[in-house]
């Protein structure tokens, strides 16, 4: 009864535009006060969930993405992809997927990716005869590769919650992220047939070579991060810092960064990180309240009463994530749900790494759906088009993303193959 009231209250607050973090913090605090617990307990819980070593990778990967963006890496990737795809029909569509794929190795969140790339790519498409709708769809959907491909902020958060190795989760996410990119290319292939006004640009090996050389050094960042983890040089959190240091030095070398812009880079990192971490900590408080009310046990009994089959469980998880991902921020869903689903998954012999990648991919689709789809809002505001228009544009592009979820459920090998090969 108490729990039902609490959850209804939270839902009302969310609908009333109270920020996600405060929709959890307010009722959480009220619950503790009303059940005669100390008011300090609420603050200790939110502090404690934030003061976690693996979560230090969040500001560090955000910093890496901001640095990569300010250092002009996206532009370099764009030039190179364009040179490669110049003569292909609908080339800018593939370029957009390709740039997102390249940038995904340096960016941990979809929103950063969408904000950084939409302003370069969509005007370029508009100039070359593509419809705005096509541009919005391909940019928005391919931005979802960034949080799946390592480094991934959702993966860092999941690994911390589920006590699985961040390295294994990173490795496990590579193939699904590549499959997402491949699936998006298929949609581009289909849709560009219906774009009669497309203009194609030229192609020259000289241009490929020139632009290719300009992306060589940036590729060093993911090599250093993943190589550093796999080679036994750094822990994932340390690798995040080392990657950011590399990108900083690269920006200095390119003269696209200097000491004067450092404060604004750190401020930008702060604003993004604080928004994410406030949600993590508020969800941890709500998670405590749910644990206190024995909700995990109840839900576990409920799910195990429905099924004892791992595949059915994974299907239920994917459906739940698709639904929750549309109404609550993905980070909050992870912090709330992982502690509940993990024990059930273990009972059913589900590999926690498979569970994690499935949860992340299916949650990310929610970034493209109203009402909470953050990527929609980013594109809507940068491109000055209504949110509904962006949503309609992205619908065909969600098909391959859903297909990847289905593949993970029925062929978990796509997730486990690479970490197994790497001995993780």
């Amino acid at each position: 009864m108490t729990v039902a009231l609490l959850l209804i209250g939270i839902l009302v607050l969310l609908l009333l535009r109270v920020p996600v973090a405060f929709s959890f913090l307010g009722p959480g605090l009220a619950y503790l006060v009303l059940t005669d617990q100390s008011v300090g307990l609420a603050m200790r819980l939110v502090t404690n969930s934030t003061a976690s070593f693996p979560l230090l990778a969040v500001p560090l990967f955000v910093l890496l993405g901001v640095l990569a963006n300010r250092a002009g890496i996206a532009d370099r990737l764009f030039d190179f992809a364009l040179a490669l795809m110049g003569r292909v029909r609908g080339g800018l569509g593939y370029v957009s997927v390709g740039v997102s794929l390249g940038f995904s190795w340096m960016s941990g969140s979809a929103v950063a990716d969408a904000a950084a790339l939409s302003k370069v790519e969509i005007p370029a498409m508009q100039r070359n005869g593509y419809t705005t709708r096509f541009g919005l769809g391909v940019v928005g959907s391919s931005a979802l590769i960034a949080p799946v491909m390592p480094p991934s902020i959702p993966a860092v958060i999941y690994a911390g919650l589920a006590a699985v190795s961040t390295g294994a989760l990173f490795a496990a996410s590579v193939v699904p992220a590549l499959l997402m990119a491949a699936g998006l290319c298929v949609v581009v292939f289909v849709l560009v047939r219906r774009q009669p006004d497309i203009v194609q640009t030229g192609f020259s090996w000289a241009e490929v070579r020139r632009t290719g050389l300009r992306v060589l050094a940036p590729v060093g960042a993911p090599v250093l991060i993943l190589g550093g983890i796999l080679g036994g040089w750094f822990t994932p959190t340390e690798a995040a810092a080392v990657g950011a240091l590399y990108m900083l030095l690269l920006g200095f070398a390119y003269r696209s960064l200097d000491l004067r812009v450092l404060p604004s880079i750190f401020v930008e990192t702060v604003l993004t990180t604080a928004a994410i971490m406030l949600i993590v900590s508020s969800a941890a408080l709500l998670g405590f309240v749910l644990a206190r009310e024995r909700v995990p046990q109840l839900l576990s009994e409920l799910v195990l009463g429905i099924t004892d089959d791992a595949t059915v469980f994974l299907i239920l998880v994917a459906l739940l994530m698709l639904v929750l991902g549309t109404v609550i921020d993905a980070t909050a869903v992870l912090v709330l749900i992982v502690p509940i689903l993990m024990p059930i998954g273990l009972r059913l012999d589900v590999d926690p790494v498979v569970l994690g990648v499935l949860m992340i991919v299916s949650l990310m689709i929610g970034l493209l759906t109203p009402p909470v789809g953050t990527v929609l809002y980013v594109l809507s505001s940068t491109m000055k088009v209504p949110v509904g228009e962006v949503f309609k544009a992205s619908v065909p592009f969600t098909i391959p993303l859903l297909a990847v979820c289905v593949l993970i459920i029925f062929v978990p090998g796509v997730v486990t193959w690479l970490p197994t090969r790497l001995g993780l």
Partner: protein
Amino acid sequence: GGGDSSGSGGVELTLAHSYTEDQPQHACGAEVIKEEVEAADAGMTVEIYPSSQLGADADRIASVQSGDIDLDIQGASALAAAYEPIGVIDAAYAFESTEHLAAFFDGEASDTVKADFKDASGVSVLGAWSAGARQFTASEPIREPADLDGLRMRFPGSPQFLLNAEALGAQPTEVAYEELYLALQQGVVDGQENPITNISATNIAEVQDYLSLSSHAQNSNLIIAGPVYDELDADQQQVLDDAVATAVDGLPACVEEEETAQLEEWASSGEIEIVDDVDVEAFSAQTDAWFTDNLEGESLAVYEAIKSSAP
């Protein structure tokens, strides 16, 4: 929260800890306390929240102090956040054995540290057990202090464990518990130390070559109680004390059973090589000299009280 009145007018006690439901601390510890308390029919019930559901160790100490959690199971080194000298209970080779730790907490030798801890924190120590001794795992066998040279060993970040590293002659390096498995697997660090039940629970044997049975510290678990303990009547306090004593008596056998089974499994599977000829004498002589030199004041007094209580 603290001493909520339940429907029948009795006291509902919250018991929190950080172990999984498979570990002996839950099955032979927390569960036994709950059963004993409730069987005594003294108007008390116990609700157990395992697996850090109510917060991580450090966080729950504050909750016990504020009365949000009534009973908890904590390592001495974690309790040092409230009263530093109690951490000495986790000093390397302070105790000779599990039985030594039991004897210390059973007798008067531990009265001073318990009373001082209560004065400093408001928290009562109801009893303590050892959840097994801490052992080294590493990429090399560790038989004598010199074997630690050149090995990057991960020790937990709290001060007492870092003192232990220094006393043992190890080069401690910091890795968060959450990143330990990967760090060992990829060789970021060469080794670590933990009791066998933890090594087994975190699958560390998969990524380490040698388990050296140094038994260099007892992994203490103290059963602590918040302000509610002082509000109970004398009968209820007695019931609670007896319940804890029953769990304290039974737990070492549970741990030993699990350790033996695990060691046998490793010996037969060969997943990790067991080194059982560690020169414990050399290690303990070295740490004793170091602690006698380096501890001061109340911490030294606790150390000496422990040493003099050896059975």
